[in-house]
Every structure is written in structure tokens, then in C-alpha cells.
């Protein structure tokens, strides 16, 4: 029977199945960070259990780490969480890239970078943006802390088989339109709950044309459409990215693996439970204006009005978003002024993201009313960027150049947007208070964030300067 890549990977990982029960699924890679793991390790300790496969775990510190004055953490509770992870990794034999380790970075950036993320794997982490790893043709999803404990002790999870969904992006994206705009457009068009209970496969010409880093941006935000996971079938782009990475197979083994990986692709005639389609040529550079990732529009649009919605719940959600965001229904997106720009996060802090932003700001200067920071996704990205002089471009333009971590995406460290202030952010969530209590987040691509930082308000990056290559 013809199968989707989702079913192929799933079926390959079933340890045990029985009518009326979820499948017992084997987990190939367990990524760990400081925030969602301490209670899980404590659970092991209390029950006198060990980590079944420490060799399949990899830990790092990202959510709480400071992005300046390393390694000083002023907050004693945050510090305790960091030291607890180090202690747990040592006690249970789990490999750790700690705050000062050269491999440190946002967990979803370093997994691919180190070649730990590979096609066909089942990958979990106590973090919803684990969907990022799906870009390689893996089933990767976020789990809660009880499940972290379950994986640590058994290397398995009980999982009901999810439904399958194809999201096809037809045609080619236009000039100045990025992977971030594609995924924001998908979420805006189909809604933040559309993927609930499904694993999504992204297909179509526009997806095939993306680099691995761009594919990671797409898959990263699958969770913002409610999907359990999102993936893209492996191809030559995937294989070329992985060749030579530290934890990928090497030499002949790699070539054999590559052949297996390519065979994972969805069979012709395989049927998805649901198929959605969007045309790339209808996608513009995007800006969110509300308090969830589906509340966004192309830059040339205006914010909707309550008259655009039918249900009272939706009307009330718009009113409540406008009140929180300090905006008016119907206003032009280009009239929204910002005070902060954040280029970073597991969505958009890879080298190509920083390059895109640097191309926009090169030789220019941040608007006097804007504070702008760049937070590379990993120490490796930071070094690569410095090697080609991006740090200098940013600092010359008035940006701060920071150490790697999750930073202002969720503001668990000191990188906080003050109440009432507005941030053009390359991150993934614009929920109330996400970047600090009372803060107002607008999700955009790196080039759009950079352009907004220069102008002090949102602008169409396609129009700002004909000489800019995006």
C-alpha cells in the first residue's frame, strides 16, 4: 500500500501495538534543556530509575542563559535551574553543551548543526518548537515533562497515531518573500488550530526550492498552526547539508544512509487525511498585528475590522488583541511604529537569517527611537557570522551583537521588552506578554525586522532600497 513519509517513519518505530491502545513508539533522539527537564530527572531519582539510553540524549542550556556578561546569571532561581541541568547530566551520564561550550546554542539550532538531526528519526524534546527538526524528514515533536521522564527511563512514548496533512505551496515565491512569510501566510490563511491532531508534510515547488535553513523556519512554526509535527521529505538539499556533519554517518555509511533517507519520501498515490493548498505568488512579506500567530497580514494590507468577522468570539478576540496591542482596527501596517527589533530565536537565528538582516542594514543606521539586538542561534552561528564580518555590519549600524540563546523570544533572561513597547521580532509567538509583561510583539522575517529597525516603523522591505539584495 502506498504510504506517506509520516506513516513510513511512524510504522518503523512501533515497539508494540494493541487494539484500543496508543502505539508504543521508539525515540531515536532526545534533546534536553534546562527548563523542562529538572522535574523529570527528579522523578527518576525518586523512583530509583536510570536513563535507559544516555547515548541517544543530548542536552544544552538555552532558555535561561544570559546573552551578555557570560557566565554571570543574576537571577538566583534561573541560576539554580542551570546548575541543576549540569548536575543531572553528570549524574545520569547525558552529554551536555553547557553555557560556555563551543557547541552551545538553541537546542533546535544545534541538533541540525551537529548532524544529530537526521531523516527518518523520531525526535523529541520538552519544547514545542521541536517541530523544527522535521525539515530533515524526521518526525519531531514537543513533549511535556512527564513524557521527558518517560523517554529518559524507557526511550519510548505512548502515542496515538496522528492524522496526516499535506500543505502544498505551489509556484515560486516572489522577490523579498522568505520562508518566514510562507509559514506566517499559511497560519494566517488556515488558522492556529488547523493542524491539531495532525502531522503535516509540506510539499510543492516553493518548498522544494528552499535551503535547509529556510525549511527549518517553516517546520519550526508548524506548532503555531497547532500541528503535532511538520516535516519536509528529504532530497539532495537535505543530503548535502548533512554530509560531513559531526554526528551524521561518515564515508560509505553516509552514502548508504542517504539512499535509505531518500526512499522515505511519500509514495505516489499515498493518501493524506487532509490536503491544503496555498499559492506562493499570493504571499507578501508578512507582519503579525495581533496576539496569536494567525493574526497577521501581508505588509500592504491593513489590520482587519470587526466587520470582517462573523462570530462574536472572533470579533471579541480582535477587539481584545487591538486593546492589548494598542492598535486601531483598519490601520495600515506600515503606520505601526516600533521601539525594539529582535533578530534571533530557533525560528530565525541561523547564519542565512543573519546574512539577510545584515544585507538590509549594511551601511545604514538603526532609527534613533529603536533598540535593536542580534542574538545568534548558537555559538557556531556566532563564530561563522563573525568570520564573515556580520557582527561589524550590525554594530556599525547600531545593533547590539549578543551571545547565543533563546533570549527575547520568550524573555526568560534579562532580554525583555518593557510594558507597552513594541518589538519587530523574528521569533515565533506574539502571545500577550511573550517578550515581557505588557510587551507587544510583531512577528516578521529577519529582513523585515532589519528594515523596521532602520525606519522606526514597518516598511515593505521590497521597496526600501533597490540596491539591497535580500
Amino acid at each position, binding site marked *: 500500500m502506498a504510504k506517506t513519509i509520516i506513516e513510513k517513519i511512524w510504522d518503523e518505530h512501533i515497539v508494540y501495538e494493541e487494539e484500543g491502545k496508543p502505539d*508504543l513508539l521508539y525515540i531515536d533522539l532526545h534533546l534536553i534543556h534546562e527548563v523542562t527537564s529538572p522535574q523529570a530527572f527528579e522523578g527518576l531519582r525518586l523512583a530509583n530509575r536510570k536513563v535507559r539510553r544516555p547515548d541517544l540524549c543530548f542536552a544544552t542550556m538555552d532558555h535561561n542563559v544570559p546573552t551578555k556578561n557570560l557566565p554571570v546569571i543574576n537571577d538566583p532561581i534561573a541560576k539554580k535551574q542551570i546548575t541543576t541541568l549540569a548536575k543531572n547530566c553528570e549524574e545520569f551520564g547525558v552529554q551536555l553543551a553547557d553555557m560556555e561550550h563551543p557547541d552551545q546554542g538553541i537546542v533546535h539550532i544545534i541538533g541540525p548543526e551537529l548532524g544529530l538531526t537526521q531523516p527518518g528519526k523520531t525526535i523529541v524534546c520538552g519544547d514545542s518548537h521541536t517541530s523544527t527538526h522535521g525539515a530533515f524528514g524526521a518526525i519531531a515533536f514537543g513533549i*511535556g515533562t512527564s513524557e521527558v521522564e518517560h523517554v529518559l527511563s524507557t526511550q519510548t512514548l505512548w502515542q496515538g497515531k496522528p492524522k496526516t496533512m499535506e500543505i502544498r505551496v505551489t509556484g515560486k515565491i516572489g522577490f523579498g518573500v522568505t520562508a518566514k512569510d510562507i509559514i506566517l501566510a499559511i497560519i494566517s490563511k488556515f488558522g492556529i488550530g488547523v493542524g491539531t491532531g495532525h502531522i503535516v508534510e509540506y510539499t510543492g515547488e516553493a518548498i522544494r526550492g528552499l535551503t535547509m535553513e529556510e525549511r527549518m523556519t517553516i517546520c519550526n512554526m508548524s506548532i503555531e498552526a497547532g500541528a503535532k509535527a511538520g516535516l519536509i521529505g528529504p532530497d539532495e538539499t537535505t543530503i548535502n547539508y548533512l554530509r560531513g556533519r559531526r554526528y551524521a554517518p561518515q564515508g560509505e555509511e553516509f552514502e548508504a544512509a542517504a539512499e535509505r533517507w531518500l526512499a522515505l519520501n511519500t509514495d505516489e498515490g499515498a493518501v493524506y487525511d487532509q490536503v491544503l493548498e496555498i499559492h506562493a505568488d499570493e504571499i507578501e512579506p508578512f507582519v503579525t498585528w495581533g496576539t496569536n500567530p494567525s493574526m497577521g497580514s501581508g505588509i500592504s494590507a491593513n489590520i482587519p475590522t470587526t466587520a470582517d468577522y462573523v462570530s462574536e468570539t472572533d470579533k471579541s*478576540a480582535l477587539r481584545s488583541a487591538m486593546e492589548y496591542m494598542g492598535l486601531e482596527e483598519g490601520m495600515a501596517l506600515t503606520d505601526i511604529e516600533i521601539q525594539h527589533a529582535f533578530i534571533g530565536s530557533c525560528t530565525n537565528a541561523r547564519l542565512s537569517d543573519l546574512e539577510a538582516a545584515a544585507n538590509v542594514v549594511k551601511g545604514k543606521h538603526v532609527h534613533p527611537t529603536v533598540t535593536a539586538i542580534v542574538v545568534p542561534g548558537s555559538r557556531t552561528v556566532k563564530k561563522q557570522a563573525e568570520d564573515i564580518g556580520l557582527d561589524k555590519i550590525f554594530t556599525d549600524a547600531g545593533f547590539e551583537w549578543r551571545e547565543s540563546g533563546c533570549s527575547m523570544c520568550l524573555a526568560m533572561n534579562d532580554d525583555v521588552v518593557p510594558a507597552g513597547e513594541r518589538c519587530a521580532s523574528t521569533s515565533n509567538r506574539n502571545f500577550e506578554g511573550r517578550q515581557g509583561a505588557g510587551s507587544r510583539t510583531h512577528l516578521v522575517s529577519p529582513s523585515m525586522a532589519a528594515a523596521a529597525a532602520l525606519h522606526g516603523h514597518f516598511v515593505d522591505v521590497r521597496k526600501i532600497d533597490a540596491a539591497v539584495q535580500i
Partner: protein
Amino acid sequence: MEPINKIESVLTPLDKNNVDTDQIISKEFLKRIERTGFGQYLFYHWRFHADGTKNEEFVLNDPRYDGSTILVAHENFGCGSSREHAPWAILDYGFRVVIAPSFADIFYSNCFKNGILPITLSVAEIDEFLHKGKEAPYTLTVSLEDQTVAGEDGSVYSFNIDPYSKKMLLNGWDEISLTFQYEDKITEYEQKHA
């Protein structure tokens, strides 16, 4: 985990859709390394103004719902982050049942690991309960065994739940201990895929 079966309580009407986990438990409270004590931070920025005073307009601060163990909201409850601190906060605050037309996957799954029963009812059924619950305190009786939610004036609605999760909640079982019964299968799988 505490078993759950029959729950009778006034419902707390949370008249919002897409309630995300950042609202349920804000990130500044995720730094603790314990599982307990999160109830005081539940919906913190909705319950309290920036100056720390109570937001009297927020439903959790309405004394009519004091002691309620059933939370009712609109669709896509628990979207966003995987943080299990969200169900920990809900449980620690005193809720045992959350009723909504739909739930985000990770939140839904996290509930079952903590003895919280997430119930999916239709939009019309939820609207009815929210409407009644907002007008005056309205008591619901939930039976997990029978898979029903009964309103105090006689309306009874049934809900679906997968039999595995139902059994776990009814018995309050620790899933890891159960999984260890399949250890030979796991070992077999590992040997086959080594």
C-alpha cells in the same frame, strides 16, 4: 497521580478562545525546579494588574466561582508551548476538569499525566454552559466512567475519550511503571535496530 471519576462543581466560565500556555503560566514562573506550587501563578497577568493589585474583572477573581474545580473555555485551549507547568498550575490552583470545544495536542496529553480530565464538547454545548455559568453560578456533574457532563437543570451531554487515557485517569496509574511491563519488547526493538 490522583485518580479521577466523579466531579461536581460550579463551573468557572473563561469566555476566551485560543487560551495559550503563556497566559496559563507566564515564563517568569518557569524557572523553579519543582512540580508543585504553580497555582498561585495561574493566569497571573490576567488575575493581577501590573502594580500587583487584583483585576476584579477577571473571572478567577469573582468570588462566585471560589472553590470551582471545573474550567470551561472556547476552542484551542492550551495552544503554544509544551510547558507542563501549565497543567501543574491548573491542578495546583484546584481545577480537575477543563472543558473546551478543542485542545492543543501537547496540553491535552499533559493533562492526562497529571490527573486532569480534559473534556471536548461541541461549540453549542460549551456556549450553553458558558452562558449559564456567566449569568449565575452553575453546577456541572462530570462522570468519567459514564463519559457525561450534566448541567444542574437537566441537560446531559456525553463526551469521547480514548479508552487508554480513561483507564489511566480512573486508576491514577503511573505510566512509566506500566511501560516497564513492555521492557522485553523495547529490548527486542533495540536489538533489531542496533
